[in-house]
């Protein structure tokens, strides 16, 4: 398995500002993912972040709104830009491990409230 940490764990932000969320993994992983979980909803994949390449965004998500960095095999950041109240969600980092069975593991999430 993998141990994943995220910072911050929660934040309250004003509309129009940006927030950068950090994700740290305790081992080197090729594939990292960012998900959004809107209140009372299931998880929606925002993008896949592989080290050494540009992030791949899912339909409905764009780089200008959710820029992602992946500087090495244990770290990634997601920025939520020009926030509006509709961005209030839980943002989760995830990694894929093929060893021991093809499984995704998730971080504790960042709870964002935009006022």
């Amino acid at each position, binding site marked *: *398995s993998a141990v*994943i940490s*995220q910072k911050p764990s929660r934040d309250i932000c004003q509309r129009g500002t940006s927030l950068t969320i950090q994700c740290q993994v305790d081992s080197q992983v090729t*594939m990292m993912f960012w998900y959004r979980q809107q209140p009372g*909803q*299931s*998880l929606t*994949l925002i993008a896949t972040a592989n080290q050494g390449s540009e992030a791949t965004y899912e339909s409905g998500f764009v780089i200008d709104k959710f820029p992602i960095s992946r500087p090495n095999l244990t770290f990634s950041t997601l920025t939520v830009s020009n926030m509006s109240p509709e961005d209030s969600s839980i943002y*989760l980092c995830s990694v*894929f491990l*093929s060893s021991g*069975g*093809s*499984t*995704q*593991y*998730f*971080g*504790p*999430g960042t*709870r964002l409230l935009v006022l």
Partner: protein
Amino acid sequence: AQSVTQLDSQVPVFEEAPVELRCNYSSSVSVYLFWYVQYPNQGLQLLLKYLSGSTLVKGINGFEAEFNKSQTSFHLRKPSVHISDTAEYFCAVTTASGGYNKLIFGAGTRLAVHP
């Protein structure tokens, strides 16, 4: 395309009673199946997974699930629940392979255990 249906959005149950959370999937190819649990204000934790082999899979915290290919189901069961099992439970499916394939989540089932 793959999909997951969790038939119950909410399941209330009394402490020490048995519980079953239902999950059905749709896929034209072989699948891997997962159950994740999300405790209040936490991220997703892997409860159990089916990759191959025995169709009865045991997970953490006394939960188990049975893969039924003919009924395309992967129902989660626990013979006796505790208050601490109160959480959101997500069933997920992906294509069976050695590499990464997108994880498709169900809408979730909220288990509420009452004293």
